[in-house]
C-alpha cells in the first residue's frame, strides 16, 4: 500500500468512528475507548456510507443502533495532582557530539554546559519515592546531553533508588538514552546487573548516521558507537539495548537501517520523525513524511511476513502500536509528560519532560519546593486533547493523544497525515495478524 493512498484512506471524516479494510475483512475503530470491532461486509458498507456523509450526531446514533454505545471513556477533566512515578535526570547537560538537529542544542539546552551534582540526583530520587506505596512501580531515566559524561551521578542515583525500592517493596525500572560513544564494558555489567533499558541514538548505518551525528570535530561517530555498543549487545539478558533512529530528510532509508540494526542484535529498533529542531534544519516536511510513511509500511509489512513465519523482527513502532491497539489504549495526552513523568535539570528544576529542560514553557517547579501543582494543573488542562485543534474532530485523537507537546508547542502539527496513515496501516496489520497469528496476542506482549 502506498503512502499517498494511506493519507487518503486515513483522512479524518468522523470523530466517532473509523473504518479499515484489512484484507481479512473490515475493522471498525470506535475512538472512545479505542474499541476495535470486526464487522461483516454488510455492516461495513452501512458504516462507510455514514462515515463519509453523515454528521457525528448521526454516526453516534448509528453506533447506538448497532449496540456499540458505551459510557464515555475519556472526559474533559485533567488528572488532579498526579503522583510522580517517572523522572528523567539530565545528569550531564553537555555532549561530545554535534548533531545539528538536537532539541538540547548539543546537550546544553542553549545555556552553559553543566553536570548534575550527586546531591541533586539523590534529591530527585527521593522525590520519585516520596509518596510511592509498596507494590507500585517507578521509573528512573538518565538523559542529557550525553548522560555517560557524568557516570558517577548515574551510579549514585541508581544505588539510592535500589535501596529505596528494597526498603519500600517498590519495583524500579531504569533506562538511559545515550549516544553510545562513551559506553564501556563496565557500563555493560552495570546496566545488565540492574536491568537497564538502554536506548542508543543512531540515525542510520555508516555514512547516513555520520552525516547527522558527527563528533564536535566533524568526524563520524558510527564506527565508534558500533565498537562500544557491541559488548552490550552480546551481554544483554536483563538489560535491553535498543536503537532509536531520528528520521530526517537525510536518512530516509528505513528498511535498510532496520534490517542492519536487527542483524546487529538490537533488542528493538524504533523510528521517530524529526519534527522540530532549534535551528529549523533537517525538519521533516510533508513530502518527506510521505516517503517515511512508505518506509514504515515497508518495515511493517516485513514484520507481518516474519511474524506469520514465526520469526523475530523487533520493529518497535509496530510492536508497540499492535500492543496498544489490542489493549485498547486510549488517552487524552500523548505521554505522561507533566503528569506522572517529569524531567529534572542539572540544577534541580522540574520540567514537563526531558525536552523542556531549561524551558520556561514547561517549567513545573523544582526539587526544593516540589512539583508546582498550580502550573501543573494549568499544563494538564491546556494540553488535554479535547482542547487541541484539529484533534477534537480526528478519529486518531485517543491513540495519538495530540502529538508530542514539545513539537506541537514549538512547531505545530505538521505530521497528522503521517500519524493517521501509520495508525491506519497498524489497524490493518492488527486485523490481519489477529486472523493469521491469533496466538501473538495471547496475553499482551510487553514492551
Amino acid at each position, binding site marked *: 500500500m502506498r503512502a499517498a493512498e494511506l493519507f487518503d484512506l486515513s483522512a479524518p471524516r468522523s470523530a466517532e468512528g473509523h473504518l479499515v479494510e484489512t484484507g481479512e475483512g473490515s*475493522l*471498525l475503530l*470506535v475512538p472512545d*475507548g*479505542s*474499541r*476495535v*470491532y*470486526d*464487522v*461483516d461486509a*454488510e*455492516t461495513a458498507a*452501512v458504516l462507510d456510507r455514514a462515515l463519509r456523509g453523515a454528521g457525528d450526531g448521526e454516526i453516534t446514533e448509528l453506533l447506538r443502533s*448497532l*449496540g*456499540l454505545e*458505551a*459510557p464515555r*471513556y475519556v472526559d474533559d477533566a485533567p488528572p488532579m495532582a498526579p503522583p510522580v512515578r517517572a523522572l528523567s535526570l539530565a545528569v550531564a547537560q553537555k555532549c561530545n557530539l554535534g548533531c545539528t538537529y538536537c532539541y538540547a542544542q548539543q546537550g546544553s539546552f542553549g545555556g552553559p554546559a553543566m553536570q548534575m551534582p550527586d546531591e541533586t540526583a539523590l534529591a530527585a530520587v527521593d522525590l520519585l519515592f516520596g509518596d510511592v506505596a509498596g*507494590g507500585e512501580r517507578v521509573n528512573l531515566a538518565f538523559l542529557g546531553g550525553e548522560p555517560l559524561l557524568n557516570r558517577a551521578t548515574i551510579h549514585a542515583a541508581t544505588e539510592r533508588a535500589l535501596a529505596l525500592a528494597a526498603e519500600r517493596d517498590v519495583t524500579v525500572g531504569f533506562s538511559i538514552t545515550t549516544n553510545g560513544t562513551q559506553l564501556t564494558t563496565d557500563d555493560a555489567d552495570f546496566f545488565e546487573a540492574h536491568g537497564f533499558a538502554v536506548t542508543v541514538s543512531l540515525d542510520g548505518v555508516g555514512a547516513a548516521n555520520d552525516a547527522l551525528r558527527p563528533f564536535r570535530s566533524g568526524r563520524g561517530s558510527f564506527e565508534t558507537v558500533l565498537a562500544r555498543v557491541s559488548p552490550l549487545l552480546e551481554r544483554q539478558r536483563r538489560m535491553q539495548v535498543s536503537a532509536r533512529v531520528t528520521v530526517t530528510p537525510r536518512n530516509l532509508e528505513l528498511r535498510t537501517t532496520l534490517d542492519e540494526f536487527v542483524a546487529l542484535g538490537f533488542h528493538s529498533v524504533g523510528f521517530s520523525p524529526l519534527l522540530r529542531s532549534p535551528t529549523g534544519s533537517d525538519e521533516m516536511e510533508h513530502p518527506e513524511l510521505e516517503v517515511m510513511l512508505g518506509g514504515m509500511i515497508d518495515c511493517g509489512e516485513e514484520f507481518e511476513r516474519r511474524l506469520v513465519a514465526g520469526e523475530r523482527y523487533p520493529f518497535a513502532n509496530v510492536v508497540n502500536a499492535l500492543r496498544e*491497539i*489490542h*489493549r*485498547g489504549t*486510549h488517552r487524552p495526552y500523548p505521554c505522561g509528560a507533566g503528569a506522572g513523568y517529569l524531567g529534572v535539570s542539572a540544577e534541580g528544576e522540574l520540567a514537563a519532560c526531558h525536552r523542556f529542560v531549561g524551558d520556561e514553557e514547561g517549567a513545573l517547579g523544582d526539587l526544593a519546593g516540589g512539583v508546582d501543582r498550580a502550573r501543573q494543573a494549568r499544563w494538564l488542562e491546556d494540553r488535554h486533547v479535547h482542547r487541541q485543534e484539529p484533534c477534537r474532530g480526528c478519529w486518531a485523537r485517543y491513540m495519538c493523544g495530540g502529538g508530542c507537546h514539545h513539537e506541537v508547542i514549538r512547531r505545530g502539527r505538521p505530521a497528522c497525515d503521517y500519524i493517521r496513515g501509520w495508525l491506519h496501516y497498524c489497524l490493518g496489520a*492488527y*486485523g490481519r495478524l*489477529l486472523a493469521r497469528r*491469533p*496466538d501473538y*496476542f*495471547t*496475553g*499482551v506482549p510487553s514492551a
Partner: protein
Amino acid sequence: MRIDPANRTAQLQYRAAGNPPSTQPDSAISNCYPGLEFDFRNIWRRMFEGIEMHEADNYVLKGIGEYQRLERHRLLLVADAPTVVALSGPQTPGGPSGPLTSQGNPDGVWTMEWSNAMAAVLRDKAGKTVTGHFTKDPSQKPAGIPTDSSGKPDLSKLLAVELNVRPLFGSSAETGEPLAVIDQERVQPGELTQSLCSPWQNDYRECACYYWAASRPDYVNVEVAATGTSAGNSWLAIHREPKQYVLDDRNDTRLVSYEDLFQDWQGRLKFIVGGDDHD
C-alpha cells in the same frame, strides 16, 4: 449484520444479544454485598480446585476427594494473606476501644471481602499452587488466626493444605488464548445471579444500615427537644402513638412484619414527605 469485538476494550464492553444494559459491569450497582445485577462474590467460591467456599465467608461448604476433610473448616490464610481481620472498637457508646468479641464471634474477627483480600493472590498465583491454612477443626463460628508470643501467625495450630488457584478468566479450547470471560470452572451458569439483593421485597425491610435499599426513611415524625433529645417513630411502626423508636428485633409485633410487607406493602406503608407522615 455481524459485529464481533476484536480488541480488549471492545470485548469488555461486549453485550450478548438479548442482555439488557444492566449486564454491563460499568452500569452495576454492586459492592461487596450482593448487587442488583449480579453477585460478584460468587467468583470466589471456586477459587481453589477441589473446594467450594461460602460466597461471603471463609467457610468451606464442600470438598471433593481428598479435600472432603476440609468441609466446615475455615480458611484463614492463603499464601500468607489473611482472610480475616480482628475487630476492635468500643463495646458501649463512649466506652474504651477493645477487641469486639461476642458469644457468636468469640475471636472478634470479620471475614474480609475477597475481591480485595485475594487480589494479589489471584494476580501472582493464578494457575499455580499455594499453601492454604485452615482451622484444624470444623468451626461454625468465625475463627481468628492464632498467634505466637511475638504476635505472628502460629501456623503449627493450623492445617496446611496445598491448593491450586484457578485463573479468573477462561481460555479458548482451540487456541489456549485467554478470553475476556470468567472461567466456567469458577462460576457456573446462573450462579452470578442466584444470590441477588431483592431490594423491593425482603431487603427493603432487611437492610438496617440505611444504605441498601437506601431510598427509604428510617426515623420519622421526629420532634427535637430543646435539650437535644428527640422523639419519633420507626418507619415500620404500626401505630404512631406513643411516639417512640421501637428497635427492630424481627419479632416485635409493634412493627410491620416481612409478611405484612410482602402481602400489603401499599396498605401498610405511608408516604413520608419531609420526614413526616402524609396521606
